[in-house]
Structures are given as structure tokens and as C-alpha cells.
């Protein structure tokens, strides 16, 4: 029997129909299996890239229905970490296939309530700002530190909030470069602005110190990554258009993003809006300017700071390593800090289980994926984990808090900033 797809697709005019060529690129070789955290955690090929692609193929072949609860389970359980993409010799665009599958499933089954609530909140800037302000107040009481040890979802959420407390002192400094590297806007982000505001400031300062001219761009909103990953492609497009319009208003050389997930999304605005004739070109033009903040810093050197004698380890965010395929830039940022010891982390290419709002929607699997990450971190003996994505910082930070491992997480740019600030205070 030949595994053939008939000339007609069982799901015409759906996002999945457009993804058929990508699905057909999979040769079923299995090279992605060991790269997949959910396969390693659950030991079921239905929770592997190859298995999920076969489920997708069955959907377009019509042998499985779009309302099949098993299909939903295994597609829901995918982290969207795209570790499978960097393992795949055939070039299967897994991230796009997943988004298309989720968007198609969303036609038959509404998103879970928690997901809808979160996504709608991220679309309302004022509501989101108020909620994050509330979270900051709660964080200031230091209660989340205590509550974070409670079992269950609430305990974990509290630990995530506690994990956003600053781990390195941020003291402003005046060091500035020439600005000759071009006008650069920093994406404010949602969680970054709400809970990691210091890291945003640090990003601006370090960019300035490395010859970028930092400009402020008003009118930004959520990048839409959470929406796209959940299958709400229309929601993602709405947000993308707002941001494209906002960034177009200034003459920019670069848009610097310090959250790997947001950067990955914005680099794909061109793809997201490819079939929108009014926006396709504009989206591609904005995407072309997007850089991870560490890319810009690495391109500029970056300038060296003062000694920071710490032992840390670095964990690569999936949306930096697998989606943006950036390996060197964050390491170059850390490498510019004298006396900083970077202890290599085993399996840094494996996801930590944060995956956007996955840890809230699939807490059990997320926990299974986090466990080996924490064990590997603990084996390094390092007190701090540097990782350039708020979701990963919160997830790993929460796990460290709950297992009493080390001090927590920082953004690599936090460390560079601290090193620059020291240089100004005690010039060496």
C-alpha cells in the first residue's frame, strides 16, 4: 500500500492546506526524535515531531478528522520549541506547520478558556499594563517567594513572578558610543516592560555604549507570538499590523528585541502577512530590520566592561537557537565580561518547558520537560543562569526557586550592563 495523498486535500481552504508542501518534505527518517523534549519526556512517538507530522498528514489525507481528540492532545502537547527544525536534514518548516495545524484545529474547537483569556488580555494594552502593575505590587511584598513553594499551578505561577526579581544590581552609567551604527528602536515588549523593565533599560544603555543611537517608538503592542503559537493567526496578524505601522513611522536601521520569542515572531511578520496584498511588503520590510539585541551588540564587538568574577551557565532560548538560529551572539555578549566564568550546560539545545504560555496550559508536561533542565543546571554548580527570553527566565527561575537550586536567572545583557556600570565606578 502506498502512503499517497490523493489529489484533493481533505481540508481545502484551511491554513493546513497551504502547509501541505511542508508536510510532504518530511521523509520520516526520525532524525528529529532525540531533539524533541516532549518525546524524551513522554516516550510516545505521537509526541514527537515525526509523529505529529504524520498526524498532520493524516488530517490532510482525511484519515483522521480535525475534531479527533487524540490529534488535539498531541498537537496541544507540542512546545513549539522548534528543536526539531535544527535537527531536520530535509528542511521541514515545522514551526509553520504547527501554527497552521493549530489554526485549523481552532476552526473546529475553540481554544481553551485559559488561553483565550491570556490572549485577549495581551491584545488590550491598558488592561495588560494594569495587570502587570498589580503583579509588580505583589512581587514587591515578596510574598510570591513564599507562596512559590506551594504545590500546584498557583505555586508555580507565584514562583514565576518571584523569579522576575532582579538578580544583578542595575546602576545607570553615562558611557555612550558615537551612535554611528544607526537608529535603533528597542521593542518594549509586554512582560519585558511589565516585569523586566530594568533589562529594557540595560538593553538601551548597552546599545548606546556600543555606538547605536537608541530611539523611542510609540504605539507598540504585543508582538503576537503567543497568538500565532496558539493558532490564533488572525489575532497575531492584527497585532503585527499595529506594530508594523508603529515602527514604520520612524526612520530606523534596526529594531532590537531582547526577548527571543518576540524577535522570532517579528522576523516572521513577512511570512505571517505574506498573503495580505496591502501588508506583505511592509511586513517584510519591518522584519528585515529586526535583530536580537545580542546580535547588534555582538556585531559591535561588544566593548569590554569591568571584571565580574562570577560562575554562571548559559541556556539557549529555543526561539534564539532553533527559530532564529543564533548561537554565537549571546556568548559574545557574555564573552565581553572579564573574569565571568561560563560553565557549559549539558543539553542546552533542549527546551526548558516554558514555551510561551505552555507552562500554564500544559503544566504537567512542562514540569517533565523542566526536570532534566534543572538537573543539568544543578550539575554545573553555577549560581546564575543567563538566558535571553523572559519566558525561559521565569520558568527556569521558578524551577530553581522551588528546588532550591542556585540564585536564579538573568538576561545576558543584564550581566554586560552590570559589567559596564562597574567599569564606570571603579575604572581599571
Amino acid at each position: 500500500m502506498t502512503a499517497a495523498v490523493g489529489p484533493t486535500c481533505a481540508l481545502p481552504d484551511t491554513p493546513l492546506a497551504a502547509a501541505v508542501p511542508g508536510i510532504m518534505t518530511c521523509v520520516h527518517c526520525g532524525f528529529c526524535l532525540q531533539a524533541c523534549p516532549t518525546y524524551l519526556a513522554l516516550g510516545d512517538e505521537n509526541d514527537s515531531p515525526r509523529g505529529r507530522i504524520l498526524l498532520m498528514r493524516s488530517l490532510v489525507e482525511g484519515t483522521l478528522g480535525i475534531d479527533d481528540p487524540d490529534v488535539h492532545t498531541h498537537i496541544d502537547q507540542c512546545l513549539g520549541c522548534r528543536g526539531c527544525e535544527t535537527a531536520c536534514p530535509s528542511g521541514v518548516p515545522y514551526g509553520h506547520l504547527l501554527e497552521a495545524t493549530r489554526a485549523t484545529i481552532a476552526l473546529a474547537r475553540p481554544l481553551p478558556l485559559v488561553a483565550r483569556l491570556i490572549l485577549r488580555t495581551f491584545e488590550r494594552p491598558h488592561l495588560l499594563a494594569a495587570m502587570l502593575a498589580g503583579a509588580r505590587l505583589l512581587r514587591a511584598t515578596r510574598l510570591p517567594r513564599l507562596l512559590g513553594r506551594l504545590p500546584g499551578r498557583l505555586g508555580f505561577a507565584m514562583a514565576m513572578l518571584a523569579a522576575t526579581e532582579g538578580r544583578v544590581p542595575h546602576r545607570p552609567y553615562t558611557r555612550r558610543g558615537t551612535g554611528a551604527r544607526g537608529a535603533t528602536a528597542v521593542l518594549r515588549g509586554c512582560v519585558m516592560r511589565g516585569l523586566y523593565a530594568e533589562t529594557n533599560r540595560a538593553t538601551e544603555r548597552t546599545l548606546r555604549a556600543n555606538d547605536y543611537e537608541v530611539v523611542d517608538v510609540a504605539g507598540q503592542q504585543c508582538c503576537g507570538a503567543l497568538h500565532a503559537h496558539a493558532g490564533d493567526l488572525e489575532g497575531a496578524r492584527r497585532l503585527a499590523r499595529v506594530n508594523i505601522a508603529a515602527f514604520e513611522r520612524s526612520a530606523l536601521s534596526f529594531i532590537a528585541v531582547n526577548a527571543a520569542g518576540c524577535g522570532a515572531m517579528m522576523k516572521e511578520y513577512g511570512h505571517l502577512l505574506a498573503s495580505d496584498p496591502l501588508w506583505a511588503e511592509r511586513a517584510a520590510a519591518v522584519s528585515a530590520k529586526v535583530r536580537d539585541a545580542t546580535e547588534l551588540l555582538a556585531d559591535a564587538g561588544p566593548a569590554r566592561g569591568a571584571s565580574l568574577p562570577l560562575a554562571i551557565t548559559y541556556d539557549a532560548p529555543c526561539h534564539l537557537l532553533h527559530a532564529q538560529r543564533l548561537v554565537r551572539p549571546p556568548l559574545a555578549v557574555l564573552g565581553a565580561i572579564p573574569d565571568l566564568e561560563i560553565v557549559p550546560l549539558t543539553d542546552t539545545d533542549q527546551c526548558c518547558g516554558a514555551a510561551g504560555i505552555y507552562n500554564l496550559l500544559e503544566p504537567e508536561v512542562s514540569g517533565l520537560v523542566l526536570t532534566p533542565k534543572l538537573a543539568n543546571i544543578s550539575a554545573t554548580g553555577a549560581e546564575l543562569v543567563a538566558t535571553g527570553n523572559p519566558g525561559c527566565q521565569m520558568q527556569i527561575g521558578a524551577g530553581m526557586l522551588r528546588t532550591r537550586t542556585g540564585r536564579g536567572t538573568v538576561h545576558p545583557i543584564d550581566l554586560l550592563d552590570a559589567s559596564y556600570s562597574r567599569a564606570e565606578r571603579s575604572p581599571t
Partner: protein
Amino acid sequence: MAMAALPISEAASVALSPALERAASRLASIVGPRAILSRPSELVTYSADGLPFYRKRPALAVFPETREQLIAVVRALAEERVPFVPRGAGTGLSGGALAENDAVVIGLNRLRRIISIDPENRRAVVEPGAVNAGLTRAASEYGLHYAPDPSSQTACTIGGNVAENAGGPHCLKYGVTLNHVIALTVILPDGELVSLGSTEGERDGYDLLGAFVGSEGCFGVAVDVTVRLVKNPESVRTLLADYTAIVDAARAVSAIIASGVVPAAMEMMDGPTIRAVEASIYAAGYPVDADAVLLVELDGLAAGLEEDVALVERLCREAGARSVRVARDEAERARLWQGRKKAFGAMGRISPDLVVQDAVVPRTRLPDVLAEIHRIAQETGVLVCNVFHAGDGNLHPNIAYDARNPEATARVHHAMRAIMNACIAAGGTITGEHGVGLDKLDYMPLVFTDDTLDAMCRLRDVFDPERRANPGKVVPVRSCREWRMAPNTRRGELPA
């Protein structure tokens, strides 16, 4: 879009036979309800292996997590007389891990621990689902590695390697899986636990370990495997020779072997393969305008290695190489190898479907056979990509095509058969390392006499008199099962 326009799944369960019903509930009580799959929608994934050309949906799939669970699972199936099929990573390329709808897949991927590494005696004991490359990674701490390195090593399991007697590029010098397995614990289909081979040197009597290695899941399930580890070589040099005519590359292979040098590996890739690899994330810097490249690796003691390198380089040039490049450092060497090892996957970008053949021909006949394959490709109008273990004459012609086109599919079948016949006519055989499984059943009578096949059946009966372990694979017994399973025989047409 309206929901009504989307197709809705049919009632998602099929009736199981009473024996299977009983087996299902017994297995669930052994492994727990989350380690057994019984709904058809969840079994779709287990309906294909590395050769998705075949799809067969099993009745159940079960995933023991401990040795005790595995033993209990096999015993329960024995008592219920239910057939089963072991499955490792499902990277097999002959349909070996597929099960009919009356059989149970025993997934071994959760039994993946490396039980022990004994650096002094250069040995390791692993569970069957341990991944090949993971073993080498663990052994590297001691300056050791597991030598058999199938291109699928980042995914395939040691149990699957044992069952297929897997080879790999470096098996040219170091030998295949059989040469590296010291002892095995096996659970026989009737539930008896036996030890094969010995960790204390040769055991008296027949070599039953040798019989089990390569038995393709038909003789029972490997429960643990004791393997030999090899010391990492002191020095390694990797050469890439580039040819504008593939036959020249084939002549270089013969010349190198004739010179007495034993390369650690000698691999060839033809033009279409090179171009697929260079378009992938594993681009290795192969010359995209070449008709073939030859990848030769020499290893051993540093003293004397440079002379061998110089000799091989000269022989490559004498055979007509346009250029010969020696990898400057470990990074470049790793890149050259990655390209080779991911070549099969990289071909996925050419066309949606892919079939791969696995035949061995006498090395001296390589130039003729390659020319013949080229002719067949031209005649049938299919795209053949050749990537293979040239050093031991193990060919892997891959054909990329679109299975949605029945006319193209028919031409591919024709080409595959013609290529296989050409290899057999050149004095070759039908599988080097991927096994017979389901895919090569038809070819068995072309290379073995009835008497030999009958002897194989009798050997199988020693291990599995009820023929419940991986039924219908490897040896065509002309029972109704074979008739049903292989698509060609089913239509009653024996291979031409």
C-alpha cells in the same frame, strides 16, 4: 470557515479479537494505562517506520519502562498467543518494525538507560532502547566510542542495530554490529529469558549470539546488550576527492583497496545527492558541480598516517580527481561527515516521497553497476541519488518521487526492481545492512534456493516455533500472511 465543511472522524475504535482484548487489559495492568495505545488515531504514528512507503496499523502499542515490565509483557502475550513486533526508534528502512492489525508493537524506546560502562575492559551494558550516538557520547568521557556508526546513529537504538546487524561508514575497518556485541539477554517469544554469548570469552557450542544478531525481531526481544567499546584513534585524517565522472571515483575506490591501505571509511555521493545536501542545513561545502565526491577517512597511530594520506591522495588524483582536500581541523571533518550522514534526509527536499535500496555488489563491479543504474534511471525517467558505503560495495540508490502520481510511482517500482536485478546479476546480494523486513521479501527467492530458505525457517522455529515474533518478515514462507503483507506478491506477480 464553517465547521460543517470539515470532515469529522468516524467512530474511533475497531473491535479487537477476544485474545487481544484480554491482552490489552493485562498489558495495561503491567505498564499502566498511559503506556499502552489502543485507539486507531494514536496508532497511526506507529503505522510507519523509516520507509513510510509501507503503512500497517498495529492492534496495540505498549511501552514497558523497566526490564521487569518488558519480561511481563512478553509473557502475557505468550499466554494469550498474540503476535508482537519489537520496535526501537523506527528508523529501519525495510518496514521491519511494522505490525499487522492482529499484532502488538512493543516500543522499547523507554528502556534507554546505559546500565554500565567498564572502561578497563572496554565494555558497556545498555538497555535495548539506548540510542547509538548516546552510547558514544557517554563513552567519550573515557576516550572510547561505540564503533558501528549507522548514518542514523543520532536516532536509532542499539536493540534495533542488533536486530538489523547495522553497519555504518566506519564498519569498513572496524566491522559491523555483530563484531561488537559480546553478550545479550533475550526474552524468547515463549517468555523464557536466555543469555546468549558470554562476557568471559568464547563459550562452547554453537554461536547462538551470532544467530540472533541480524534476526530482525523474529527471534525474540533483546533485553540488554553488552557491547565492545573501541579506543578513540590517536590520529584521524579525512579527505574529500572531487570527480567530474562517477566511474572515476569508483576506480579510485578499487585502487585504494588494492594498495593495501585500510581506510576507516570510504563513502561516495553522486551529483544529485551532493546538491541536496548543499541545500540543507547540513551543507558541508561539497563541490556542487561535481558528478561524485569520495570521502575517505584514515585513522590510527600518528606515525605513518601522513604517508597513507599522501598515497591515498595520489591514487585519488591518478583516478581523475579534480581536487583532493584534507580537512584542516576537527570542525571541518565533522562538517564533511554531517553532510554524508544526513544525506538521506536531505533528499526529502527534492520530492515528497523517497525510497531507498540497499544492495551489495563486488567492489570491482562498482563502475559497471553504477553505469547500469545510470542507464536505468535514464530509461525510466526517475531521479536516482546514489550515496553509499563504497569501501564495501554497499550501494544505496535513493529514488525521490511523488507518490501522489501513480504513473511516476509505477516507473519508480520498475526502476527499483531493475536496479536490484542488475546488482544480483553482477554477483551481488539484496541487502547490506537495512535488512529484509517486509520490503525485500520478494527478492529472497532470487538469491537463495528453496532449501536455504527452508533452513532459515527451521532456524527461526528454534527460537519461535509459534512464529509470533515479527511474523511475516524476512523469510517468505508462502503462508497466507506473506501473501497479504507484501504488495507485489499479493498481486501475484513475482519480481521479474
